[in-house]
């Protein structure tokens, strides 16, 4: 399955576009997504400051609500990654 990860803040380093398409095993949840992101970052972006991102990021559903690690992802679903925030 594939999900469309909408990128914000520091996670924009992961792609030139605002969305990163992520391949996942079928029936994956947010916890699986964190593991895949950890792998992507360690393989391609180890020199960036993104190492802690899969652990510290929250995720929003298409309804802009925080979803927990057990949330079952659907094929082609749009999910937002929310790195630690700091406006003001």
């Amino acid at each position: 399955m594939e999900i469309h990860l909408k990128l914000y803040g520091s996670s924009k380093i992961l792609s030139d576009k605002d969305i990163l398409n992520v391949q996942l095993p079928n029936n994956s949840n947010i916890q699986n997504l964190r593991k895949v992101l950890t792998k992507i970052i360690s393989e391609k972006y180890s020199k960036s400051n993104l190492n802690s991102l899969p652990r510290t990021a929250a995720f929003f559903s298409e309804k802009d609500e925080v979803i927990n690690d057990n949330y079952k992802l659907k094929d082609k679903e749009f999910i937002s990654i929310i790195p630690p925030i700091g406006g003001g």
Partner: protein
Amino acid sequence: MSVHVALIKIEEKKISSEKAKKFIASEKNGAESIFVGRVRNENGGKKVIGVTYDAHDQAVIKSFESICKNAKNKFDKNGKIFLEHAKGYASVGEISILIAVGSGHRDEAFKICRHVLEEVKHQSPIWKKEHYTDGKEEWLPGHSLRPKKQVK
């Protein structure tokens, strides 16, 4: 209407303190409190030339509305609140956030202003990338929205 919230595309439009003052103006106000946050030219010894603000627009507006509603309920149901935050590239000196509060009394006006600012920093999905004089740039660390016990 007693609350105004917005994300402002800063390259197209500036955040205006005059607009904020007009919005909160009321003969019922005994106090007005205004907080203006600006991009400063230094951070941690690095010389800053500007900041890019990124935001999850819909979630930011939802959070702003919720924060203002809660502040009114907590401190002054009749208070008026104006809250705008920048999105996009802002140069040193430009306004990044403006909070203006009109209230019956000074204590409530100060408290609402402070409360709104702190809650924006802890709830609203906004990110800052600083740009430095040496050409480098850096996303700043922030506050995780993931429950603390899950961030190991």
